[in-house]
């Protein structure tokens, strides 16, 4: 089977998965969750008010219609309007995605490059002082609460030294840069610790494989062995691990965005949760579900590309 035929077939399998994810989300939001009108109108609302609101929100429509609506929204990305701001949700997503991405994408690529480089480095000097100290620093970085990085970063680097903006956001390149620097640095610091440890294990696994002994017996130097033979094998595991994170990048980080006042999808989601803005929360759930499904397909395809052992079936 050719690669394109494989991709097309994989995409066909996506259809039932999307229907299933929509069903799950529909069950959670339209069937089992508490009546949203209660939190919207308060305890003292009259029956008439409640009924009127339910009608307005479309909650009196038959359940199967509500499921069809869910699927339709997943396919058209038309999620209706927010209950609290009355804005088009697709419009909100479009506006929120950009600030989120300006933080998460650079942070993702930086931490990927730094982690792979560091783990190659520690695997190369395995067992030595350098290896041990870097692993120690990784564990130390992981053990500190993310709030500490945020508060210290905002107080010391942004407030005292004035290197970055403390919080807020400005649209358009290059105006957003001073606002996203600190969030990016903190996201990288938070990500590098666990990643280096995981990649290091993957690489150490490879270093003791027979093909490495063969490479040495050919007369190759340790650097070529690490950067060519070990790295390419390690990438097979690392890629799956990394690509599956990409969908979550679009949604942004709830924590970072709320602390830094970045008007991204993370912040929007948080606000929606606080105000029981069901359509918005639901849109986010659908969005992350679909993104995950798509990136699963991408991972599978990448697998085929990087690992010649994976057969197209």
């Amino acid at each position, binding site marked *: 089977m050719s690669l394109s035929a494989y991709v097309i077939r994989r995409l066909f399998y996506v259809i039932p998965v999307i229907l299933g994810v929509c069903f799950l989300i529909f069950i959670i939001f339209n069937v089992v969750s508490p009546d949203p009108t209660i939190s919207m109108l308060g305890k003292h609302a009259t029956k008439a008010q409640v009924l009127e609101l339910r009608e307005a929100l479309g909650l009196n429509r038959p359940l199967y219609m509500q499921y069809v609506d869910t699927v339709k929204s997943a396919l058209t990305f038309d999620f209706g309007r927010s209950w609290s701001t009355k804005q088009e949700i697709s419009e909100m997503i479009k506006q929120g995605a950009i600030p989120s991405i300006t933080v998460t994408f650079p942070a993702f690529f930086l931490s990927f490059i730094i982690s792979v480089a560091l783990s190659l480095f520690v695997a190369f000097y395995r067992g030595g002082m350098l290896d041990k100290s870097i692993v120690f620093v990784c564990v130390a970085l992981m053990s500190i609460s993310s709030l500490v990085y945020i508060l210290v970063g905002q107080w010391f680097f942004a407030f005292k030294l004035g290197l970055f903006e403390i919080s807020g956001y400005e649209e358009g390149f290059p105006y957003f840069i001073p606002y996203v620097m600190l969030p990016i640095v903190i996201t990288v610091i938070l990500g590098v610790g666990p990643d280096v440890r995981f990649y290091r294990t993957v690489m150490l696994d490879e270093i003791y*494989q*027979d*093909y490495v*002994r*063969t*490479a*040495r*017996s*050919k*007369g*190759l*130097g340790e650097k070529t062995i690490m950067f060519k*033979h070990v790295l*390419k*094998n390690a990438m*097979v595991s690392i890629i799956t691990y990394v690509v599956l994170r990409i969908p979550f990048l679009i949604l942004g980080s709830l924590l970072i965005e709320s602390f830094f006042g970045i008007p991204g999808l993370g912040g929007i989601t948080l606000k929606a949760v606080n105000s029981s803005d069901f359509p918005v929360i639901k849109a986010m759930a659908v969005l992350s579900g679909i993104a995950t499904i798509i990136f699963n397909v991408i991972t599978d395809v990448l697998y085929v590309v*990087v*690992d*010649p*052992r994976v057969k197209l079936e």
Partner: protein
Amino acid sequence: MAEKILEVKDLVVEFKTDRGKITAVNGVNFEVYKGKTLGIVGESGSGKSVTALSIMRLIPNPPGRVTGGEILYRGQNVLDIPLDDMRTIRGNKIAMIFQEPMTSLNPVFTVGNQIEEVLELHQKNLSKQERTDKAIEMLRLVGIPSPEKRVQEYPHQLSGGMRQRVMIAMSLACEPDILIADEPTTALDVTIQAQILELMKKLQDEMGMGIIMITHDLGVVAETCDDVAVMYCGQIVEQADVKTLFGHPRHPYTKGLIESIPSFDSTTGGEKGRLPTIEGMVPSLFELPQGCNFQNRCAFATEKCKGPHGEPKLEAIGSGQMVRCFHPLS
């Protein structure tokens, strides 16, 4: 007399383990000649692979270390030379193939790429196209059908026997002086084993390299070797040319090994030389006995063998035969 290319002198290799220090190779001597095959035979754990890896300087350190002796390649002690110089010898002058054909090749590179890599390293005058042509030629030489196609395949697309052929092609690409084959056919089935051994012999005739054939199978020794060293607990216990060793073994262990080969003559038939069984257990390297290491399994052991006179020395007995025994068989 053929030209001597390798001489191992009093080689000692130690490993530091959690349970203490062991001497995996203890005072081993042998020589390898151009166009000849030296067999090293012995049960599992007798120090064959460690001996081979020492020649390549590939003993994992820690835990292992060569603590004594010399390894003279064309008169030069490879244990003394800088690692960078050693790399110009590995894969170029001295090449090695391993017991595990399934895992010895890198799964994510094509076999062509892996053969070209060794050429790129040691034959810098070749162009890219010449390297590719040479890789195809090597695959043809080791009997891989349609090598132009196979050169672009990945190891998993080949059978175990084919992969070992690729390993042989790779190891011989630079026409080395010495090929070390560490149980090259142990993981393969009998018919494939015979084909691979035959191939190695044919290539030796064409290219003239010296071979160190490591095996636990005396059947393989009988088929391929000119000289043999029998190892036990890190030492050579008997050494002779093949004819003498099989015709007139002097060490009780050698004799036991020969007797326990099932249907010795049928090496070309279906029966594969099984792991020879001699009663008793190989002593642990952590608690070697006083005296002769073989005493607990030896039918000829006397009081003398059990300690007071130290261990037996490897001594010449007859022309070119050496034996490590207080009471050599007549």
